[in-house]
């Protein structure tokens, strides 16, 4: 396995990151700004700062085809940044929410995006050309608490949401005139806006950190704060699911998960490294960590001289510096995303963390 590509950008937490489709641009949510990094040789260099929010930016997403960037923030606004020859032009989106916006993602069709919020609702936004305006419609019932995470089904109509009321839900976000009529799936056949196609929780009811549809869209996985991941296989519309498989782990909770094919899930979180889960409808289990641990002094080369040794003994009363974790990330991993993938199989994925690092991993 190739060594991971580590980019230590700064010493601030990274709330969310997103690569453009050609991997030349990397967008980072840092404090109240969106920072755009460009690839310069083997490193990433700061190219542009998008300033438009006046509170912490919580989430960010680059549409792979159009190159539009959408960002959302605790100031309750979402901005769509349109690439123009003069730079990025922001458009304010009226979300009509009175709590922080927490999470944003483009639909695969790129005609809509969904914003989760602390206002116990999801704003589904689409462009209205007559008014030259992004309009939002609210998915409200039956969410009882902050929406922490969202994921789109490949058909761009179904939307999965995880919330602090410990439920992962699947909604229809069908908008007449924007979406073509979707084919019936195991989740539902007729799908008017705000149809609740499924509501799931695990036994200990931890709040949900991350949700993801499998590449085919026929299974849903979610990670919750009880250190578990749960995979749901629906059977037919309005029927109880075929299987709900929960895996409780001995690890700390996972903040983010992605599917790699239909039989593997990669999840990372408070343990500062990524883990693989393997399984099927018959059962899932934790298989291994993605990267082998224990390469000392990874990333930073430490001086191994007698002078340094005595200096350490003098300053800290010990020879070995044990302030470094043995993982590549030195703090919680906040988000993992597919980096290179085809037909649902991930070859590389990227992770961002509270330590200000972006790491690109080979699976």
């Amino acid at each position: 396995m190739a060594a991971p590509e580590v980019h230590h950008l700064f010493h601030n937490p990274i709330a969310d990151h997103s690569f453009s489709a050609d991997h030349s641009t990397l967008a980072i949510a840092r404090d109240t700004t969106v920072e755009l990094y460009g690839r310069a040789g083997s490193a990433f260099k700061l190219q542009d700062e998008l300033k438009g929010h006046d509170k912490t930016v919580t989430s960010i997403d680059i549409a792979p085809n159009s190159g539009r960037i959408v960002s959302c923030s605790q100031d309750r606004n979402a901005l769509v940044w349109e690439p123009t020859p003069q730079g990025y032009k922001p458009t304010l989106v009226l979300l009509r929410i009175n709590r922080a916006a927490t999470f944003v993602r483009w639909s695969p069709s790129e005609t809509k995006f969904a914003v989760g919020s602390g206002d116990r609702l999801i704003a589904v936004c689409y462009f209205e050309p007559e008014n030259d305006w992004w309009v939002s419609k609210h998915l409200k019932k039956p969410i009882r608490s902050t929406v922490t995470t969202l994921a789109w089904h490949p058909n761009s109509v179904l939307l999965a949401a995880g919330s602090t009321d410990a439920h992962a839900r699947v909604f229809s976000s069908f908008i007449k005139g924007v979406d073509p009529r979707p084919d019936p799936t195991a989740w539902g056949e007729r799908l008017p806006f705000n149809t609740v196609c499924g509501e799931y929780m695990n036994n200990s009811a931890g709040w949900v950190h991350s949700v993801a549809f499998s590449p085919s869209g026929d299974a849903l996985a979610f990670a919750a704060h009880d250190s578990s991941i749960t995979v749901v296989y629906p059977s037919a519309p309005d029927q109880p699911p075929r299987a709900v498989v929960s895996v409780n782990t001995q690890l700390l909770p996972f903040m983010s998960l992605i599917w790699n094919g239909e039989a593997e899930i990669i999840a990372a979180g408070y343990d500062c490294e990524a883990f693989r889960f393997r399984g099927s409808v018959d059962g899932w289990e934790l298989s291994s960590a993605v990267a082998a641990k224990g390469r000392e002094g990874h990333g930073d080369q430490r001086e191994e001289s007698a002078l340094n040794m005595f200096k350490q003994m003098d300053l800290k009363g010990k020879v070995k510096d044990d302030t470094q974790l043995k993982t590549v990330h030195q703090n919680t991993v906040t988000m993992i995303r597919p980096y290179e993938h085809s037909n649902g199989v991930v070859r590389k994925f990227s992770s961002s963390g509270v330590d200000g690092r972006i790491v690109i991993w080979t699976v």
Partner: protein
Amino acid sequence: MSIIREHTQTTLSDAWRTIDIDALDPDSAPNFDTSTLHPPQPEITEAEVRQLTTQVRQLLRGGDAEGALRGCLDMPVYNGSDGVKEMAMGLVVEVLQSIKASEMVPVLRGVGEGVGGGERVDVLMKYLYKGMAAASSSSGASSAPRTPTRVTPQQTGFSQMGPRPGASAESTGAAMSVLLSWHEKAVEVAGLGCIGRVMTDWRKV
């Protein structure tokens, strides 16, 4: 701009920021019963706990500590009156005290095996945290007539921090040391995820 200039000093104050708007919203969290979000747990009555107690004591007399612990943890009292919960807690502590320090890890591993094994260790962890909470609250009010869980000292390898005034403080200290050493072993067997689940779980023992 003119509108802003017309504002008086009082309307520009920050007083409106302190208004609790959630109290006015019928759908907000404070106005909503969160217990309806979870499926209800079956209620466990005093008779059931009594029956369990006799079974568990029988197993203990027969020397099957692992089976006794397993029996306690298979029937956690998530829904029951305070008295029933205290009875179940007392029973768990009784079983834990009867197991020698050297047998802790093998017993835990045995309990953690099989169907629902992970769940059993999680339940044990919930009892340990409840026990520690009860022990510390009763030491705070040493004159309180009711001590929730009576625990007698036991050799666990934990050294006491020297003599302390008051017999009740000493006994709660001993109780704590039993629970703490079990806690240590449970983390060893079931990892940190187990502690996270105790704090996250809505089902309280």
